[in-house]
């Protein structure tokens, strides 16, 4: 009996002991993460700042391609220089965006909002820690100043990007409370104040991926032009950049010698690049740093063609036609390039590759010239499958005919066309000649063109592309966020608006002259024959401000096409409704036009995107919708 009591007492003692250490037992430190106190050092702050920079590509594993910084959806597709492409089932949420029927619940819009404010919150988190570290004397005032200026300039840029999208946005600084944020006030001054802090950053930041004084000046000028139409203010900044600007690593900026070289990945930090978003491949990021935002935008042909996926971002016919030039090599500023006589031949509806069976008898000469059928075959060439086939209508006796693509070099184009667009018959980087519909996922939906500027060269596969995944379309082809040509054209725009037409002419012609360098033409495989008939001339004069404006606006379309600027340019110029309705009316006449646009029209509300409904809901009504949406 005694023994039992001893055991019982022992047990109670054990339980008691256990109880006494319980408070320690229930305190478990988090694993695999950092406490704020560990970050208040130069290394910690620098890492926070890099975290803020890392959102400049619009990508992280938390976000997919919707908020890509290249703005291929928001700037290019919405600007109708490109369409969604691919097939109608894939990424259907882009369809209403390109058709101007998007509603506030569109998930692409919400994803982009969330991405931009995540970027802003990282800037703010950095600023908070900088201030703490400074207060605790963990860093010097000089160090703090540099960190703060970078973080604030980044914050200004992210806000500006949001402003262009929605106009009505909340401004979030490091003290702002998300729970009470509103979008009712005009935040443009705050954005400008943030961007202004960066303009005296050093020119040499020691790293190509940081913002320096030059980058900050260009961004500030962009914001002044877009938000305030303050061309005089922007002009001073841009003129200074033209005269003294440097890349963030301190090296010189200027125009690249030839147009095409700009888009070669190897030259992503070349002289043309004022700021390029630094993509990196095979860096253990699961391709999230490798231009994931543009991963869908490659020609669609398995294995042998670039990327292999997913056939999105197909240039629009109207955009292609814009490259038609007159005898002087100047663009058709009256938009007459869209007239039937001027438009560029498309290979819509024609079998791709080399579909002819050599064993079958046909007479190419007889067929191709014998018949010039009416719509919808108006642009198509035919070959006869039988001799003496004249007069047979391919529509009524198709067995006698095969559609035949004949390269038509009779129409003179600006050489920048074939760097901006992949089209049939033209060499496509070092991938060989674009062979038409077998590079296209669904011609009847997206039309016959492929994107080109962001595509890698075959010789760069594995080096500048992510290895070992379902596509090679993750590349190091960083988005050229600010090109020198863009700076020159912005400067010219400011000069036009301040009526300095002479200097505007010089700057526009600098850009055109570079494009005219025949060394920069796309060449046939022999390396010497231009792939099409190219011409580009300089403007002799800008007779009037209105003419200069038109020329400048066309120049931005041609020079910066497919680079995510178009819609925002139109927004700045107040042309969204008129210009896009004109373009859509033309695109609707294409074979794929109805499927794509479904009789869309653009109205006044469409100068901005709707504020995401989810954000309005989450704010409990403190965030309100744009007028008209």
């Amino acid at each position: 009996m005694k023994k039992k009591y001893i055991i019982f007492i022992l047990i109670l003692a054990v339980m008691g002991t256990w109880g006494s250490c319980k408070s320690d037992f229930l305190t478990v430190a988090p694993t695999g993460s950092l406490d704020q106190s560990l970050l208040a050092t130069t290394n910690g702050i620098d890492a926070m700042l890099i975290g803020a920079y890392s959102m400049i590509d619009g990508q992280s594993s938390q976000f997919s391609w919707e908020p890509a910084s290249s703005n291929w959806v928001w700037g290019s597709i919405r600007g109708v220089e490109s369409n969604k492409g691919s097939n109608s089932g894939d990424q259907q949420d882009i369809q209403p965006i390109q058709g101007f029927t998007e509603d506030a619940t569109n998930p692409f819009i919400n994803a982009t909002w969330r991405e931009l404010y995540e970027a802003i919150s990282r800037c703010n988190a950095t600023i908070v820690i900088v201030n703490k570290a400074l207060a605790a004397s963990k860093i010097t005032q000089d160090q703090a100043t540099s960190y703060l200026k970078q973080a604030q300039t980044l914050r200004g840029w992210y806000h500006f990007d949001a402003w262009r999208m929605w106009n009505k946005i909340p401004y979030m600084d490091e003290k702002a409370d998300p729970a009470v944020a509103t979008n009712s006030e005009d935040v443009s001054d705050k954005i400008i104040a943030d961007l202004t802090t960066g303009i005296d950053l050093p020119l040499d930041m020691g790293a190509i991926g940081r913002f320096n004084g030059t980058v900050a000046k260009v961004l500030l000028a962009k914001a002044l032009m877009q938000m305030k139409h303050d061309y005089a203010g922007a002009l001073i900044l841009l003129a200074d950049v033209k005269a003294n600007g440097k890349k963030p690593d301190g090296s010189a900026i200027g125009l690249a010698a030839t147009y095409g070289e700009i888009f070669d990945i190897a030259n992503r930090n070349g002289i043309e690049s004022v700021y390029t978003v630094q993509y990196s491949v095979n860096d253990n990021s699961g391709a999230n740093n490798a231009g994931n935002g543009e991963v869908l935008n490659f020609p669609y042909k398995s294995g042998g063609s670039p990327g292999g996926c997913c056939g999105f971002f197909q240039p629009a016919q109207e955009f292609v036609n814009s490259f038609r030039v007159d005898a002087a090599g100047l663009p058709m500023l009256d938009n007459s390039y869209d007239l039937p006589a001027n438009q560029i031949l498309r290979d819509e509806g024609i079998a791709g590759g080399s579909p002819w069976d050599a064993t079958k008898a046909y007479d190419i000469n007889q067929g191709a010239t014998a018949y010039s059928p009416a719509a919808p075959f108006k642009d198509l060439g035919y070959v006869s499958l039988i001799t003496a086939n004249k007069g047979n209508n391919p529509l009524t006796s198709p067995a006698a005919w095969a559609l035949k693509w004949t390269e038509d070099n009779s129409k003179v184009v600006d050489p920048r066309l074939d760097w901006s667009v992949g089209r049939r018959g033209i060499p496509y980087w070092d991938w060989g000649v674009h062979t038409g519909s077998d590079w296209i996922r669904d011609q009847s939906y997206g039309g016959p063109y492929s994107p080109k500027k962001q595509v890698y060269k075959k010789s760069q596969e594995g080096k500048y592309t992510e290895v070992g995944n379902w596509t090679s379309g993750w590349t190091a082809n960083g988005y050229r966020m600010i090109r020198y040509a863009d700076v020159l054209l912005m400067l010219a725009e400011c000069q036009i608006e301040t009526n300095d037409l002479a200097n505007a002419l010089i700057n526009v012609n600098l850009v055109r002259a570079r494009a005219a360098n025949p060394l920069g033409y796309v060449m046939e495989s022999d390396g010497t024959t231009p792939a099409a008939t190219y011409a580009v001339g300089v403007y002799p004069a800008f007779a009037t401000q209105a003419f200069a404006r038109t020329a400048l606006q066309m120049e931005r379309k041609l020079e910066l096409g497919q680079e995510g600027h178009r819609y925002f340019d139109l927004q700045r110029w107040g042309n969204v409704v008129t210009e896009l309705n004109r373009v859509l009316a033309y695109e609707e006449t294409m074979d794929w036009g109805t499927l794509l646009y479904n009789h869309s029209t653009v109205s006044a509300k469409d100068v901005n995107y709707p504020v995401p409904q989810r954000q309005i809901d989450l704010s409990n009504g403190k965030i309100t919708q744009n007028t008209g949406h």
Partner: protein
Amino acid sequence: MFKKRLTMQISTNVRRIALFFLSMVLSSSIIFAQEKTITGKVTAQGEGPLPGVNVTVQGTTIGAITDLNGAYSIKVPGTAAILVFSSVGYTSKQVVVGTQTAIDMILQSDVTALSEVVVTGYTTQRRKDLTGSVGTVAPAELTAVPTTNVSNALQGRSSGVTVIGNGQPGSTASVRIRGFSSFQNNDPLYVVDGIPTQDISSMNPNDVESISVLKDAGAASIYGSRASNGVIIVTTKKGTKGTKVTYSAYTGFSDPGKGPKNLCNTQQFADLQWLVYKNDGTVINNPVYGLSTNPTPTLPSWAANTNWFQAMTRTAYTQNHDLTLSGGTDNAKFFGAIGVNKNDGIILYNYENKYSARFNSEFSFLNSHLKFGENFAFAYRQNNTVAQLNEGSPIEMGSFRSQPIIPVVIPAGETITGLAHNYIPGDWGGTGIANGLGQAGNEVAVLTRNKDNKYWNINLIGSAFVDVKILQGLNFRSTLGGTWFNSYQSTYNFATYEGSENALTPSYNENAGYNLEWTWTNSLTFDKTFGQHKILIVAGYESNELGLGRGMSATGSGYFTDDPNYRTISNAAKISGASSYFNNPVTLISQFARADYSFMDRYLLSATVRRDGSSKFGSTNRYGVFPSFSAGWRISDEPFFKGISFINDLKIRGSYGMMGNQLAVDAANQFYSYGGDPSTSFYDINGTFSSSQPGFRPIRIGNPAAKWETNVTTDLGFETSFLNNKLGLKFDWYQKKTKDLLYNPELPGTAGAATQPYINIAAMTNTGVDLEFSFKDKFGDLGFDGSVIGSAYKNNIDKIAEGITFFDSNGGSRIGSFNRNAVGHSMGAFFGYKVLGLFQSDAEVASSATQDGAAPGLFKFQDTNGDGAITPEDRVFMGNPNPKFTYGVNLSFTYKNFDLTAFLQGSQGNDVFNWNTWWVDFWPSFAGQKSSDLLNNSWTPTNTGAKVPKATSLSNFSTNTQSCSYYLENGSYARMKNLQLGYTLPESLLSKISVKSVRVYVQAVNLFTITKYTGLDPEIDTQQANGSPNDLIRGVDYGSYPTVRQYIIGINLAF
């Protein structure tokens, strides 16, 4: 009172001692004269010889125990002696000796509803005494349907328990007790031999002795903070006296069936393409079928007519072996078991092999005052699983995404110039043959290439205990146990050539991880009867540590050869990824107590309280207290009830109490933390092209104020048996109100994308009824045992968060979310536009509400708010994935040596969102397989009564871009889960070969399913999220691995 009873007690003892001595004296003189020896054999009805039966002479201390063969021998004092045969679990029997010298006895099993002993929280109780709601599942039911996973075996077996599974070997079914009480994780707590765990997938169903389901607060709140999803207590088998060896085995095969019924063959698909061209007026040169202006499509020479479902499925074989050894003496008992299960899935190369072993033992010392014991189980599982419920799964990709024209393998004599590959005989066929074939993978190629992928895991679960009898009725028990889990996986991704979207470089991933959990429980139990007062008190102290685990994963790209023997990460041309995780451990400390009191077995009261402390919560809200009260009243024992003779027993009971839940909360929830990894916050700031500099970001917003979510449960029920206990009925009504429900409300975008904290904000209510009805009788040689169980619940979200009235959940659809969780509706309700029909004419379009893309032949949506325009505000709650009720019907018949069991299980009144329809009923939903309905029964100006909208390439608001009622189907079904015919060999035959019993059986599993659902299987499993089924996206058929018909033969042997 106390004093009086004590005196009584003493006097009783004195009397007993006196009697004892008296009988000793008497017996020595009397026995000699009249005693004789009786021998015989005791058998159990339907089970064979019964060892360990107590045979006593009534009113004496004379006794014997049957041996292994059930034989006994006893000396009785005379012919008037009465022999009493008793054994736990059997009805005692008495026989007057008379002139007999040999008495054989057959004992009947005594598991009637009332005398059944039920394992509950930290104790066992007679069912008779229960005041809480407790369901039980008999072990025979667990092994009736061949499965290696106990979770699947629970389906249709206990009221209040809803189980949804799938056909993949070894998969774990979703087990939900009485609806849902959390947005995040509604898995019940399993307690295996006293050790709490969230996963019992490693357990061999054959090792289970009993399962109790604690459903209400009265029963479960003793598990406090982990009880709110219900508790399932699993007790494993123990040894009994004597030795017993059993062996059971079965083998059989599954038939994949014919697959989807309404898909196009090659010619139909080509005709459909022509119909689309005609409808759209498209003129194009189709890369496969030629010029669209041709009157008919031309099939290319390589055109196959592949039935992809049949190509990627097979007849799958299963075999299972279980060997058990058990035995013991008065002071030592053991049970050992070994199980082997090899289970092939109907999908090519899909399998699971499971090897399990268990050893349970118990030793007692000091005249049973001290007991030691242990339960230990080991399971090794090896499998090659396939994905399900997503776009890349073979079920979805192979069945609904692959065009029939694509050959599986290029046949002899055929060469094809493809887009990027020239195909020769023996090559895999694929979408790279020509433009327009879509982008589905060749599923047969994928599965064949994956056949050498390997996954295995080892699970250990075990506990050891010491039990000290301090005083009569007062026991102390200490149990230390835990689980250990280790897994390893190797996956090789081949470079492909056959598709339109190819992987150019092979890659290889290896990952491994471990997890450890331990629990230490100390409890005191006081169990004593004082006359008509019965008291059971249990109080204890428990500590837990969970989630002690780490893991790592690495991926290499570029391999010189695809040879399986060459696959290491180090052999890669480049290591393309490496990562690891470090679990945040969770600790829990608990005190608990329960007191049961019953008076005259008629008035029953019980109170429970548990206090839990958890490291998941900040120091201010670390502890939660969970009390409950329950009471029962056996009306049938009241004098006024005596006249009602057909009712044998009637008990009404009720309970009220609280239970907690903390599964939703991450261990780091209370901390505001920073961090970063290459994929979220690194940046190539130096412009290197191929390396990025480390960067950080806020990764988690902390909420130190979070506390337990609390579930307030009310339960009212009755249990009754009548007509000589032949009929039994159990009924419960309950209401579960979850308050302070932990939810991580989406923060405004302006707060950034750091992980949002869980806060106690939402509320939810479940109300429902559980019903169990049983009938048992014997008609001559024909025995019948039948039961029906039914469960119904209604789930309602009462609150989500301030200002937030809904959130959507998406399981990977291409057109947004289908499931909306909104206040006033049940979790995961289907939300979208209601389809009124198809527009028939331009005039109808013009006269209807404005609708984007509206055109004849396309959907006409309901203008719910009548504002003349179809906008997002017109969407409605159009269906419910939750069934009105689920049921199981079990019928078993015995006739002489034959037994026949039928088990029917079903679900009624639930909707299924058939996402597969989106792929096949709409031409622009990717260029994959299409339905024959789209060809034959789609809208044209002349076929206006069509089922399917117009076949068109148009993809817009009025076709395939919106969640709408078109995809909803009635998901009700009734399934014959089990039909089994067994034959037990006669004993006479067996005695010669010293085998105790032999039973052979044939069985058909899932013989038929009655349903209107048009997909592969109406039982739609739920996607997993963080290892638990995601209840927010229930009922969406993203391609669920179908449960198919299976035929089995088996044998049960006992030695």
